[in-house]
C-alpha cells in the first residue's frame, strides 16, 4: 500500500482560492518548497552515499526514516522524555539500524551479483514496514512537537521556525558530508572502495568497515531526516517511508546519483515541483509531476543533472 505524505498546510488553498498571487504568496511558496526540498535532499543524500560506494539502491533507506520517526514517538509520547533525547536517540537508532542491516543483510552478499543485493534491499524494506505494522499497528501515531517554536511573520510572509531549522540543518549536513567525502582519510577510503574494491583491499583498506561506515553516515542522515519530517508532519505510519523514500530516490537520480551536490539540487527540484503544483491547485497531480520530471530527465540526460556521462574507451 502506498500512502501519500499528509497534505501540505492549508494556506496554499486559501491563497489559490482567493487568487492572491502576490509576492507574499510566492515567497511563502518558495520557503515551503525549500523546506520540503531540504527534507528530500537530506534523504536523497543518504541514497547517493550508499549508491556511490557500493552501487546499491538501498530501498530500505526510506524505512529507516520511518523507524526514526517511531523512535521519536516512543521517547516523547510513550516514555514522556526530553525531546532532545528523542532527537539524539532517533539519529543514533537510525545509524545503528543502518549498520545492522549492512552487517546482517548486505555484507554476506559483497561478492554476489548486484541484482541479489537489490532484491535483498527490497526484502529488508518490506521486513521493516511489516515489522513496524506488527509492533505499532497500522494507524498513524502522532509525534508531538519537539519544541514549541514560534512562527514569525516578516512583511506578511510567515516564517516558521521549523522551515528555517530544516533548511539550515540540510545545508550544514551537505557541507559536512562534502568535507567528509573529499577531505578525510575515511572519505578517500570510501572513494577508493567505490572505484575498485579489490585494489582498495590490496592497498590496505578495510573494505567492510568502510562500507559499514558509509551506511552509518547514510543512516545518520536518515535519522536527521526523520526528525525534520516529524517536525513538519507530526506523524508516523509504517508505510511513511515508501513515498518519502521513492521521491528522494527520484531526487537522487534527477541530480545524478552518486553526486552530493546533485542530490541537493534534485531534492530541491522535487520539493519545488510539488509545492508549485499544489499551489496552482493541482495537488492531485503532485506525485505524477515528480515522476514525470524523472522521465523527462532520464530521456534527455540519463545520468542526471550533475551525473557524468558514461564514456567508454575504445
Amino acid at each position, binding site marked *: 500500500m502506498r500512502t501519500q505524505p499528509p497534505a501540505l498546510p492549508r494556506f496554499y488553498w486559501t491563497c489559490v482560492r482567493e487568487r492572491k498571487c502576490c509576492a507574499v504568496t510566492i515567497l511563502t511558496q518558495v520557503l515551503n518548497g525549500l523546506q520540503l526540498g531540504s527534507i528530500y535532499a537530506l534523504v536523497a543524500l543518504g541514497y547517493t552515499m550508499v549508491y556511490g560506494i557500493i552501487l546499491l539502491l538501498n530501498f530500505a533507506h526510506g524505512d529507516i526514516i520511518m523507524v526514526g520517526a517511531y523512535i521519536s514517538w516512543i521517547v516523547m509520547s510513550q516514555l514522556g522524555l526530553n525531546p532532545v533525547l528523542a532527537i539524539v536517540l532517533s539519529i543514533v537508532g537510525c545509524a545503528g539500524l543502518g549498520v545492522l542491516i549492512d552487517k546482517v543483510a548486505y555484507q554476506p552478499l559483497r561478492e554476489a551479483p548486484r541484482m541479489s543485493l537489490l532484491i535483498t534491499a527490497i526484502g529488508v524494506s518490506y521486513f521493516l514496514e511489516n515489522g513496524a505494522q506488527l509492533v505499532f499497528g497500522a494507524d498513524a501515531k502522532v509525534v508531538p512537537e519537539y519544541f514549541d517554536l514560534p512562527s514569525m511573520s516578516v512583511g506578511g510572509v510567515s516564517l516558521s521556525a521549523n522551515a528555517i531549522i530544516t533548511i539550515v540543518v540540510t545545508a550544514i549536513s551537505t557541507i*559536512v558530508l562534502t*568535507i567528509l567525502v573529499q577531505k578525510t582519510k575515511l572519505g578517500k*577510503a570510501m572513494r577508493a572502495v567505490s572505484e575498485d574494491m579489490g585494489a*582498495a*583491499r590490496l592497498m590496505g*583498506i578495510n573494505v567492510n568497515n568502510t562500507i559499514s561506515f558509509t551506511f552509518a553516515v547514510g543512516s545518520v542522515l536518515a535519522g536527521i531526516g526523520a526528525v525534520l519530517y516529524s517536525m513538519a508532519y507530526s506523524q508516523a505510519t509504517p508505510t511513511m517511508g515508501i513515498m518519502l523514500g521513492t521521491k528522494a530516490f527520484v531526487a537522487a537520480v534527477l541530480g545524478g546519483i552518486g553526486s552530493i551536490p546533485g542530490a541537493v539540487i534534485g531534492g530541491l527540484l522535487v520539493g519545488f515541483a510539488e509545492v508549485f503544483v499544489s499551489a496552482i491547485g493541482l495537488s492531485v497531480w503532485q506525485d505524477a509531476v515528480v515522476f514525470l520530471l524523472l522521465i523527462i530527465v532520464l530521456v534527455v540526460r540519463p545520468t542526471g543533472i550533475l551525473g557524468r556521462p558514461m564514456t567508454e574507451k575504445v
Partner: protein
Amino acid sequence: MSSDETTKTETTVETAPSASPKRHRPVLVQMETPNLVPERDLGKMPVLQAEHLGIDFGGLTAVDDFNIAMGRTEISGLIGPNGAGKTTIFNLLTNVYKPTRGTILLDGYDTAGKSVVEVNKMGIARTFQNIRLFNKMTVEENVLVGFGNSMSTHLLTDVFRLPKHWKQEAEFHDKAMDLLGIFNMQGLAQERAGNLPYGAQRRLEILRALATNPKVLLLDEPAAGMNPAETEELMENIEKIRDDFQIAILLIEHDMNFVMGICEVIGVLDYGRIIAKGTPEEIQNDPKVIEAYLGKQGVK
C-alpha cells in the same frame, strides 16, 4: 640407518624452537637455493619465502610446487608464456587466492589465514597487469590512499578542520610529494589519475604501492606498453627504489631486455611449475626455457 644420524636430527628439532626469538615467529624454513640470493643479502632472513605453494581451481592445477626465497634487497623476475600462472602466483602471495597447498612466510611470519588487508600491512604491496588506479581521484589522493595505514587521523579533527588536521595534511602532502618526486610527477599531483598518459599511470601505480610501506613490492608487467626510452628509465628507477627503500622487488615482465637487464634471479614458469631458475645468463642458455618459449624445434 645409522644411530648417529637420528640423534642429530632429534637435537635440531629440540633446539629450533628455543632459538626463535618470539613464540609466534615460525622457525625459518631452510632456504632452498641460498646461492641464488645476492651476496649482500646472505645471512639475513629472507624477506619472502614460499614453500611448495600450489593452488587448484576445481580439477585444474594452476600453480604447483612453487618455491621462492627472496633476499631483502633482491630484484627477481618471473617469466613464462601466457597463462603459465605468473599473476596467479602474485594473487597467492597477496592472499587474494587462498593456496591449496604450501606456506608463505613474509619476513618470517606465516600469512595463512590472514586477510588481504592484513597481508598488505605485514609488508607486501603490488601493482596490476591491467592498471587499477582510482581513476576519479587525483594523483596525490591515490598516493594518500596508500598512506592510509600510517595515517592516524581522527575523523572529527578532519571534518571540523581543527589545527591538528592542517598539520597532518601538510605532513602527508609533503610525504606524497617526496614519493611523486621519484618519477618527477610532482607537477601532476592535482591531475585526475584517469587522465594521465599510460606510462604515467603505470608509474603512479608503483608509487601508490610504495606508499603502503612494503617490504616486498610485486610488479605485474611494469613496462607493458612503454616505449624503449621509458623502459630504460623505469629500469633505473626500479633500482633506485630498491636502493632508497631497501626493499625486495619481484616482477613479472615479458620484455626480455628489461628482465635480463634488471633481475638478479629469474624464475621461468610453464604450466604452473617452475622449470628453470637462475641468473639471467643461466636462463638464457637453458634448453628447457628455450623449449617452453619456442617449442621443441627451438632446442635443435
